[in-house]
């Protein structure tokens, strides 16, 4: 998933960006409020993390603009309650004070992201396929499957909305930040690998010709052929 981080250069931005990257999400780190506004004009995010600095009215304005379309986690400067209340008043979904413990911030990020699709637990499942969003592990019929970070991230996006057809461009958008240069066929590559690794699952990724991909609870025969890597005529 793609996350917008709005924070001055240095800490705590670096720590946050690194940690979110480790979770397998793409991060757009904007260092100013104006560039953050440009980013939200052209890109959808699964979450916005906004540091509230001296320039409080601009920061709160950004929180308000952002929270209309995506959950917002605000970082208030200092431990005083007032800063946090202002963030909530501007529409933030959660707020922690700086300094914070990175593990707690990560857990709050997970809590906000899962609620976006109405999930109450950090676990996505479809048929006998389970993705544990805390441990970033995938299980088929109770067995752990070895996937790379990106493969887990792609599967997480698909499983967030089963049956939805995701255009390749949207998947690419959600997997990579602005700075990354990934080609559209990267997605094809990842999908092919995921299919190979998940071939024992009842659920599977279906190609919707000319549009993109969707994950379905029960994959049909023809696609089953292509997901095991065997080319079969339709």
């Amino acid at each position, binding site marked *: 998933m793609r996350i917008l981080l709005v924070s001055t250069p240095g800490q705590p931005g670096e720590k946050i960006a690194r940690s979110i990257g480790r979770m397998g999400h793409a991060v757009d780190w904007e260092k100013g409020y104006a560039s953050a506004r440009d980013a939200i004009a052209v890109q959808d995010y699964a979450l916005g993390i906004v540091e509230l600095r001296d320039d409080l009215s601009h920061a709160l304005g950004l929180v308000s603009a952002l929270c*209309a379309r995506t959950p917002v986690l605000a970082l208030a400067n200092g431990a005083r*309650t007032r800063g*946090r209340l202002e963030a909530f*008043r501007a529409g933030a979904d959660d707020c922690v004070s700086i300094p914070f413990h990175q593990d707690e911030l990560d857990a709050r990020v*997970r809590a906000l992201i899962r*609620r976006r699709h*109405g999930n109450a637990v950090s676990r996505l499942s479809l048929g006998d396929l389970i993705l544990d969003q805390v441990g970033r592990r995938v299980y088929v019929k109770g067995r752990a499957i070895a996937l790379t970070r990106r493969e887990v991230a792609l599967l997480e996006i698909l499983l967030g909305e089963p049956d939805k057809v995701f255009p390749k461009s949207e998947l690419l958008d959600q997997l990579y930040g602005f700075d990354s240069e990934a080609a559209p066929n990267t997605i094809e590559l990842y999908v092919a690998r995921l299919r190979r690794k998940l071939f024992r699952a009842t659920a599977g990724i279906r190609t919707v010709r000319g549009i993109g991909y969707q994950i379905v609870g029960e994959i049909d025969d023809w696609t089953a052929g292509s997901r095991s890597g065997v080319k079969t005529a339709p």
Partner: protein
Amino acid sequence: MKTLLIEDNVELGDALKAHLLRSGHHCIWLESTADFDKTIDKEAFDVIVLDLMLPRVSGSQLLNSMRERRIAMPVLIITARSEIDQRVRHLDAGADDYLVKPFELEEFSSRLNAVARRGVGLNQPLVRRGGLAIDPLARRVFIDGSEVEYVRREFQILLQLAHAREQTVMRSALVRNVFGYENDISENALEIYISRIRRKFPDGTDVAIITERGVGYRLTTGNDQ
């Protein structure tokens, strides 16, 4: 907004319940987890406030069993346990927020509203029109960043006008939606409510209610939306 409060400390439970009722919310308070199932079978709640250290079945156990049974109601944990691993563990077990005691009532309210807002199926973000922000669930109104208190009907009228964006809402529609059919209320009463709403607008704001004579009312908010 309906809150289920589970807290065994009588003083705190009492204070929180009173606070919620004062804010115009509905609240059921349980001193233990024993009657949880019975209570949620009878009534739907927007949010659950859960203490961790409870007699017999603890808050942690209840949270786990809820989520295992796919009860997806939003949960705000309130607890004296401030350790990071406790926070992480409970957030990852399905809590939506975790607030450490002692806390200020205002922060409690803010977190409760935020948690309820993003809960299952509710998904009612703030209604924003220029400098006006309305939290439909918490029934709170902010104009140019400061809170303005409106009584129930004033609030409903304002929300209706906000939902209509800058369109004129017919007087008859407002009366019907706010007062209902059965209420024998004249359109003069509506005018009184409108003037009360206007009086509470802070000085210098761009938020205003325009009277369209013989037709109805519409909200304007300047141009920054």
